[in-house]
């Protein structure tokens, strides 16, 4: 290692963890402080803006401490600012004393950013419902920027007042509409499975519903189709699914 690099590493070690590593010799304290504060504040801002609920649920002191820990101990490997929250999420996996719902909650908060900036192939003209098309007879696909999520906690309901203590399976569809808004829809397990089916294999609503009715041995196929068609129509109106 070169001499100037030894100095650089002492400089950044101190920035990362001033309690553990003293500043390099003969660097003026108030000038060193500029860098300590600037690095920490930048990262604190970039992370906090993505995880407002996590921050609220943990409280200011714990949140601050967590980001201190992130700056001190995590080696970020992406130069893209947008990916700082994703790296924080990876860092959280190594923290052992978090409430069990916190990582799912953080993931749920990060997904909004991920879907809002997800790259998709040039958006084809969205086909909407018309008299000629319907969800039962047309092939359905999930909208390009979207994801289906299953959590062990009702992440979308968590707040400072509601911190879940028992496991409650939660299914969500997150998607970006043509106005670039990110939308969340809570799903029941049947709709979740229907959309998983469509995601893995685009097919007409009728085929997807028939397969699902068969799998779940639902007794009344006609009723199942009618309910299913209503749900699909609604998802289509919201631009969560598209017809082709």
């Amino acid at each position: 290692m070169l001499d100037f690099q030894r100095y650089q590493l002492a400089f950044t070690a101190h920035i990362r963890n001033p309690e553990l590593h003293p500043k390099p010799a003969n660097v003026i304290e108030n000038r060193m402080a500029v860098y300590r504060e600037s690095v920490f504040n930048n990262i604190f801002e970039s992370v906090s803006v993505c995880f407002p609920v996590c921050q609220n649920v943990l409280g200011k002191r714990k949140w601050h401490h967590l980001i201190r820990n992130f700056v001190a101990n995590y080696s970020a490997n992406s130069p893209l600012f947008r990916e700082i929250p994703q790296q924080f999420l990876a860092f959280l996996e190594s923290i052992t004393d978090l409430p069990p719902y916190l990582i799912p909650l953080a993931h749920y908060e990060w997904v909004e950013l991920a879907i809002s900036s997800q790259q998709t192939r040039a958006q084809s003209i969205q086909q909407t419902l018309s008299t000629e098309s319907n969800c039962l007879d047309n092939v359905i696909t999930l909208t390009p920027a979207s994801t289906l999520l299953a959590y062990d906690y009702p992440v979308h309901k968590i707040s400072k007042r509601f911190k879940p203590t028992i496991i409650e399976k939660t299914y969500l569809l997150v998607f970006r509409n043509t106005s670039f808004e990110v939308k969340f829809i809570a799903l029941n397990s049947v709709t979740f499975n229907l959309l998983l089916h469509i995601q893995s294999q685009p097919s007409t609503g009728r085929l997807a519903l028939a397969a699902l009715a068969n799998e779940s041995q639902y007794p009344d196929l006609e009723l199942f189709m009618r309910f299913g068609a209503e749900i699909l129509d609604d998802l289509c109106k919201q631009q969560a699914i598209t017809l082709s």
Partner: protein
Amino acid sequence: MSSLAEIKGAGLGLKRELIPQIQNLYQEPYNAESSNQDASIANIHFVEIAPENWINAGGKAEADLAWFIERYPIVCHGLCLSLGGPDPLNTDFLKQVKQFLSANKIPLYTEHLSYCSDYYQNQPGYLYDLLPIPFTEEAVKYVAQRIRQTQDILGQRIAIENASFYAAAPISTMDEITFLNAVLQEADCWLHLDINNIYVNSVNFAQQQDPIKLAQDFLHRIPAERIIYSHIAGHYQQSPNLLIDTHGKDVIDPVWDLLDTAYRLFGIFPTLLERDNNVPPLPILMREVNKIAAYQANHQNKQPVNFQQNLTRVIC
């Protein structure tokens, strides 16, 4: 769009909050009927973006970028290449930059003469800030080699910016301008001259000397032929002898004076207003963009002093 020659006049750093305002005030070229002088953004000749904010961005950002690419020449001004960093140069990222420049027809990529990563745990260890490289011979060679490697990968010349800094490294063996010139020469790259940073550093390291004189001396030692592009911005005064390069306030008069001196010495060059914090509404910002344009107009047909000096030297 767009060739290097199209990066000219005055420009504005593209902040997200400015995008809808520019889109609202944008008028197709050659429509000189703008009735409201305040609303005119005609002096924005180009815009600048940080690749770290726009690479791989889909959705709204992608659509916005497409809008600007159709209408404005664009400069890429990087923040995280870490030219002075101890980790291996991030060639995967550079290839992304190359692809991004090419896909969006962006003719100029500039970076800071600084570092932002520390190779912590054998990973890049990004700290997402501009940290000061100690001014030593070893550092000159090291950084210059990485700039050359960058230029080889991109297949084009880059410009490096004189960065603002706050903490002098006790191990430095030369001053900033000597370091900058040595790197420029060794790397054979362009200079992205940041006018505000000259002033900020002059105040921050003036000790008992006159910062204005220090800044002027710095400017006089700039190699004119390497200047391709420049920045001007405001800063925050934390104390009388400590300025922080926040880009959060109006440009102050001594910095305008430096720009004026630079144009007088070197002739005019494309100059961009950076405003990253406390961003006022666009019409207010335009006063400073217009001011850049006015300074440029004032020096438009004058022979730069340095040019005359060079000429004299050749003749003698």
